[in-house]
């Protein structure tokens, strides 16, 4: 029977002032000597063990962005002029105006490392965390997406990670009743020990319902509601426990958290009911750093201070010490600031939804965050110093010396022989269709509920997901999440821009207008100057491109230290683009078009295969320069499709695998055939497999072809009819090869199940 925390001697502010010289385990907590020194200066004494716990976790890389901050500032500095941005970087998530008084908030966040240790729970709690971020803005979550990266398809550990992660994303999202409307799934050796699980959530609200994370109004109550607090994700602080307490020391603390989607569903419904009844002055989700983060951020964003009575926090594990309670990352918890006059109504709603809620403190007119443990004052700090004035590193960065060699290794025909005959090209296409990265995603996406809520207009395997925001006006939003890590490995600046370019295009081909951006920057160790350079380049590239496209970065997340030993993952800046579609009934998709329609190729094709799907599948080659970034061409493509959306019968973007894969996907999706005549000025292989940007295939009735050409000409966009839709069910490339839908479907459908078998 371990003694409960309350009976232990606690390290108080009084004690800290008295024996100011006591040695503390700041290093074990990941603080640097100078950081510990700064804490002592801020407080004019040594921190108590509780304060030390708070600072150490809030000043960690994960919470303070100390390595990335100096670079992320560019998203603000280079922010494009736009009236759409209602709330920008710095809040739980950004908010954009989508018209008719509707606001939409969206953000992507990573849960990479936990998803390797315990794939199901790691992925599940990743979804749970981002949904609470969206909820905390005042929005009803309306959809989720997931961008996944796994190791080699044939590695023995891959099925464990894929199976667990996919079941976890589905298990949590399905149980919350949020439609999954798209994402990514990529296999590459570089992610073997470092799978990436990036989850995105979108929420919608009326402008006037936007809520912010701030604690204002002295006398207002601080309420913690949702799950009880357990020892989740606090392995680190146990050193404190053993240090500050004589007794047997604390019980083992779990490294992995288990999610409770049912509790989160109750949390969503009860929080939305509170918003509706206008009972909430300020609100914050509890995620990384738990109570330390929520209390210090709320207090520091507000106009006063805060007093917390920590012993009131409902516990799942009575042996937790105050330090551990402050740092616990137990899931499915929220914190609200509520006026005393509203507290009864607030509690009634919690009772109705059977959600545990406890007043654990109040807003004060001081400028301090004070935490009490029974009658002892154990934390007394200026909240801003915890939440916002964390250390900022100017980490050294340098262009890696190996990059020149890599960029010089262009996949020339000599280095990477290309298929020459029609038969060879047919085989190349079949190989791509059966590859881990370009085959049907159905094994994954069929485990996600796409229909719940009844507003899903487009979802997997469409180019972008679309959800209806307003049933009466038919207004909706489109979202796409994209990245090609190989491009990042060849040139991180261009790689980030190409990720944006692709996401922008995927949104545009639905007829929606791209509006704003969120991003999740997955990189290796910032302590490696080469990796730090890749990071800096990627941020610079993304910021520059967002400025040019007029789509502001509204928020996102950074995940560093994704590496095993000294090999880092490819720079993987996953970019999410959100667009608006004023009438979802006008949306375009790959589905549509009938026999006799003209098949039209929009955009210009160059000889660009470096980093592309064919060269990596056929030759495992990674070298050369990625496709040329051409953002004005992307804008021209978007404008052309938007202008023609009234008469186009279908549209599909061209990216991984080039024209060949795009054509195959159209045939497979529509069970029709196409007769294609390739442009003559290019060699057939380039025409089929190049991955030049700013291209799309559209179908259009013969009568409207001229109108389309006119619309493209107006934008200075190349536009050429390359074939016609037939009812043959065969993909015909004149003079080269033809493949039936069935020939293509079998390898395409077999690949993922084979990996998982």
């Amino acid at each position, binding site marked *: 029977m371990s003694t409960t925390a309350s009976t232990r001697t606690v390290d108080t502010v009084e004690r800290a002032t008295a024996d100011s010289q006591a040695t503390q385990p700041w290093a074990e907590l990941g603080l640097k000597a100078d950081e510990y020194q700064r804490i002592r200066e801020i407080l004019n004494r040594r921190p108590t063990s509780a304060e030390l716990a708070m600072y150490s976790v809030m000043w960690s890389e994960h919470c303070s962005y100390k390595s990335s901050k100096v670079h992320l500032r560019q998203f603000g500095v280079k922010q494009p002029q736009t009236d759409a941005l209602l709330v920008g970087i710095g809040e739980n998530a950004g908010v954009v105006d989508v018209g008719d008084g509707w606001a939409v908030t969206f953000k992507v966040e990573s849960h990479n490392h936990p998803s390797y240790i315990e794939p199901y729970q790691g992925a599940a709690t990743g979804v749970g965390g981002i949904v609470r971020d969206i909820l905390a803005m005042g929005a009803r979550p309306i959809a989720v997406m997931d961008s996944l990266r796994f190791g080699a398809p044939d590695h023995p550990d891959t099925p464990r990670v894929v199976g667990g992660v996919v079941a976890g994303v589905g298990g949590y999202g399905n149980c919350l009743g949020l439609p999954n409307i798209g994402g990514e799934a990529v296999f590459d050796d570089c992610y073997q020990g470092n799978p990436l699980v990036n989850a995105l959530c979108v929420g919608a609200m009326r402008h006037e319902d936007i809520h912010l994370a701030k604690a204002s109004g002295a006398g207002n109550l601080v309420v913690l509601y949702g799950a009880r607090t357990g020892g*989740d994700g606090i392995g680190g602080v146990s050193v404190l426990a053993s240090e500050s307490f004589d007794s047997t020391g604390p019980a083992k603390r779990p490294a*992995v958290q*288990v999610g409770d989607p049912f*509790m989160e569903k109750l949390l969503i419904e009860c929080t939305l009911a509170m918003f509706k009844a206008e009972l909430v002055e300020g609100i914050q989700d509890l995620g990384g750093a738990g109570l330390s983060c929520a209390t210090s951020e709320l207090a520091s964003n507000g106009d006063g201070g805060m007093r917390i009575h920590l012993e009131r926090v409902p516990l799942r594990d009575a042996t937790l010490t105050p330090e551990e309670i402050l740092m616990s990352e137990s899931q499915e918890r929220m914190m609200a600031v509520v006026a005393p006059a509203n507290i009864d109504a607030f509690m009634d709603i919690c009772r109705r939804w059977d959600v545990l809620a406890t007043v654990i403190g109040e807003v004060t007119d001081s400028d301090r965050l004070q935490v009490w443990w029974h009658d002892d004052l154990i934390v007394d700090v200026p909240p801003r110093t915890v939440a916002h004035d964390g250390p900022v590193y100017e980490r050294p960065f340098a262009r890696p010396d190996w990059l020149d060699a890599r960029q010089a290794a262009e996949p020339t025909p000599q280095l990477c022989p290309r298929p020459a005959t029609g038969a060879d090209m047919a085989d190349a296409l079949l190989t791509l269709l059966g590859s881990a990265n370009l085959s049907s995603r159905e094994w994954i996406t069929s485990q996600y509920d796409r229909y719940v809520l009844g507003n899903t207009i487009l979802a997997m395997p469409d180019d972008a997901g679309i959800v209806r925001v307003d049933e009466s006006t038919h207004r909706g939003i489109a979202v796409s999440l994209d990245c090609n890590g190989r491009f990042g490995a060849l040139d991180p600046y261009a790689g980030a821009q190409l990720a944006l370019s692709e996401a922008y295009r995927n949104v545009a081909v639905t007829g929606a207008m791209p509006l704003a951006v969120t991003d999740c920057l997955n990189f290796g160790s910032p302590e490696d100057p080469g990796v730090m350079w890749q990071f800096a380049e990627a941020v610079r590239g993304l910021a520059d491109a967002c400025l040019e496209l007029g789509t502001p970065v509204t928020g996102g997340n950074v995940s560093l230290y994704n590496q095993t030993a000294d090999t880092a993952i490819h720079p993987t800046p996953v970019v999410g683009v959100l667009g608006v579609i004023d009438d979802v009934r006008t949306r375009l998709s790959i589905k549509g078009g009938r026999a006799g329609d003209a098949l039209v190729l929009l955009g210009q094709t160059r000889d660009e295969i470096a980093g592309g799907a064919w060269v990596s599948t056929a030759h495992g080659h990674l070298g050369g320069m990625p496709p040329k970034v051409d953002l004005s061409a992307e804008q021209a493509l978007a404008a052309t499709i938007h202008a023609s959306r009234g008469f186009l019968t279908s549209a599909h973007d061209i990216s991984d695998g080039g024209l060949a894969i795009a054509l195959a996907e159209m045939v497979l999706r529509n069970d029709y055939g196409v007769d294609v005549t390739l442009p003559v000025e290019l060699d057939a292989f380039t025409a089929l497999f190049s991955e030049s940007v700013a291209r799309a295939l559209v179908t259009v009735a013969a009568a409207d072809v001229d109108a389309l050409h006119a619309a493209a000409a107006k934008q200075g966009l190349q536009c050429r009819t390359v074939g016609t839709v037939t009812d043959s069910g065969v993909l015909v490339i004149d003079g080269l090869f033809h493949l039936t839908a069935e020939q293509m479907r079998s390898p395409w459908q077999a690949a993922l199940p084979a990996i998982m078998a």
Partner: protein
Amino acid sequence: MARIVVTVMLKPEILDPQGAAVRGALGRLGLTGVTDVRQGKQFVIDIDGDLDSQREQLLQKLAGELLANPVIEDFRIEEEQ
């Protein structure tokens, strides 16, 4: 022929939403004084012949890799008579 029973339980410090749901339901249905409920899995494995030490070892290993994830779960192996 031997029958081996492998019981897998979430570690005590790990949240057990399933157990919590059952505890709530038992309470609502009038069973008083329930202080905790944990829900686990049980695998009943029938094997030809008897469990020689080599197969026993392999089973030990597989229980910790396939049937349970030691990061969040404990497991127990018993041979039924």
